[in-house]
């Protein structure tokens, strides 16, 4: 293949992403869920703050970023839609006719999606952190600043986790080509995996739990190692494992996109 302009493909995808109002609304909802739920949880936890929270060491950073748990779902929808909406409308054919190098198309979508969700993710995490800490401090609970050990790392990785999950969801969307199916699979991997985990023998749980996306992202947005009910990787290892999820889904999607008829 002659490598039809990858830069042009990125420009094209950027125009597509910003020209659909529903995408912009979903991003706004993501911010609202992140910050709003984070504030609510900070308020709740602040009112009965103690040195521990059910076995966890009280981590003000993690508490303020708890809204990410919900935002992960809306960010996944955006990731799925960036490709599945093209199949739903048939515009995928125009896209692939314009850029026959299908790998370029998926790479361009990934760049645009990753960049957009990273910016939104960081905006969410910093805002959630400051709002959450202010609420905790206002209630006299222990609170953190960005210079608290691990806090800045937690905030930055929280934002990154949304971008990685968006790419993971896009990979699923590329493989399944169907919005409802892909969103269902994404949510199942994110949340239903917990129900399955609960049914496993205890020693299996210890091995498996640290690989669950939700445990990975929780570890990423914590300032301290939790030592909670689930064993978890360190924040940095968790980031790498979550990135591996994104890469695996991208590769799976890319292989199918290149091989299948459009």
């Amino acid at each position, binding site marked *: 293949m002659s490598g039809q302009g990858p830069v042009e493909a990125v420009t094209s995808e950027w125009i597509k992403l910003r020209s659909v109002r529903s995408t912009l609304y979903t991003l706004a909802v993501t911010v609202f869920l992140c910050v709003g739920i984070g504030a609510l949880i900070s308020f709740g936890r602040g009112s009965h703050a103690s040195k521990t929270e059910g076995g966890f060491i009280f981590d003000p950073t993690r508490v303020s970023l708890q809204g990410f748990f919900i935002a992960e779902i809306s960010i996944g929808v955006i990731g799925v839609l960036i490709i599945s909406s093209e199949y739903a409308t048939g515009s995928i054919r125009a896209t692939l006719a314009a850029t026959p190098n299908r790998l370029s198309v998926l790479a361009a979508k990934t760049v645009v999606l990753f960049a957009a969700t990273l910016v939104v993710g960081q905006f969410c995490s910093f805002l959630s952190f400051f709002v959450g800490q202010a609420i905790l401090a206002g209630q006299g609970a222990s609170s953190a600043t960005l210079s608290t050990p691990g806090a800045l790392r937690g905030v930055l990785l929280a934002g990154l986790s949304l971008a990685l999950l968006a790419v993971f969801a896009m990979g699923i969307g590329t493989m399944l080509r169907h919005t409802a199916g892909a969103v269902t699979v994404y949510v199942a991997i994110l949340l239903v995996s917990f129900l399955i985990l609960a049914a496993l023998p205890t020693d299996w749980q210890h091995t498996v739990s640290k690989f669950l996306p939700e445990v990975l992202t929780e570890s990423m947005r914590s300032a301290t190692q939790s030592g909670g009910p689930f064993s978890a990787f360190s924040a940095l290892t968790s980031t790498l494992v979550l990135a591996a999820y994104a890469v695996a889904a991208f590769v799976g999607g890319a292989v199918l996109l290149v091989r299948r008829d*459009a």
Partner: protein
Amino acid sequence: MIDASNLVKHYGKTTAVDDLSFVVKPGIVTGFLGPNGSGKSTTMRMMIGLDYPDKGTVTIDGRAYDQLRWPLREVGALLEAKAIHPGRSARNHLLALAASNKIARARVDEVLELVGLSAVAGKRAGGFSLGMGQRLGIAAALLGDPGVLLFDEPVNGLDPEGIQWVRELLRRLATQGRTVFVSSHLMSEMALTADHVIVIGRGKLLEDADIGTMIARAGTSVTVRSPDAATLADAITAAGGIVLTEPDGALSVTNLDAAAIGELAATSGAVLHELSPQRASLEEAFMSLTKDDVEFGGAR
């Protein structure tokens, strides 16, 4: 020029395209005809690299589609109406396509003007009628000012004024020296626009000829009226003609021309009331070509 050679495409056990070879020349409108489900759209999708042929190749001016540096500047395709995100405006849809092939932004407004959508360029495409969607698809095809154009059923959903507009557009594009390839399942539509037709049925090539040749090859029949019809029919049959008796008693003769029939009438002493060659219409020619190849035929 489009060059398809020995294209084969299976979907599971169904053979959609079966060893199809043809050439589409520049400067004329080439009609691509076949009943529904005959493999027209599949063939067109293979031309622009959307579906992969199981066997065979198709090239545009000698190169495979995925080898083109900026494909939209060489090939424009209208494959399905309204293949656009309903939440995106017509202008943004075209801007995204233009950006992907380094086409100047000014060209977007030019093609919008050309297809008559300037007034609704900023509106969400979800509210477009089928005809407006079709016009937007045509605008996208013309965006890169390409030398080769593919249109799959371009008049679907258009009103009579729109159909007229598409016909004139196709003629004009061909006059400019472009390769224009238009599919349709309506022969009558092609009779008005195409110079050349390629007819397929069940994925196989049935006819590749200019319009005039196609009508001629579809055969002419001769209508004969005679009070001595029975005698004359025997003589014609003996001479190798094929005779059908019409409900009103007239004979419809094929495989023998009017001159030969006139001579037979003279030698057999039959009186002739009428001896008139009938030219088959293009529609009949198409029907007779594809009668065995209709995928979804109703009971007759």
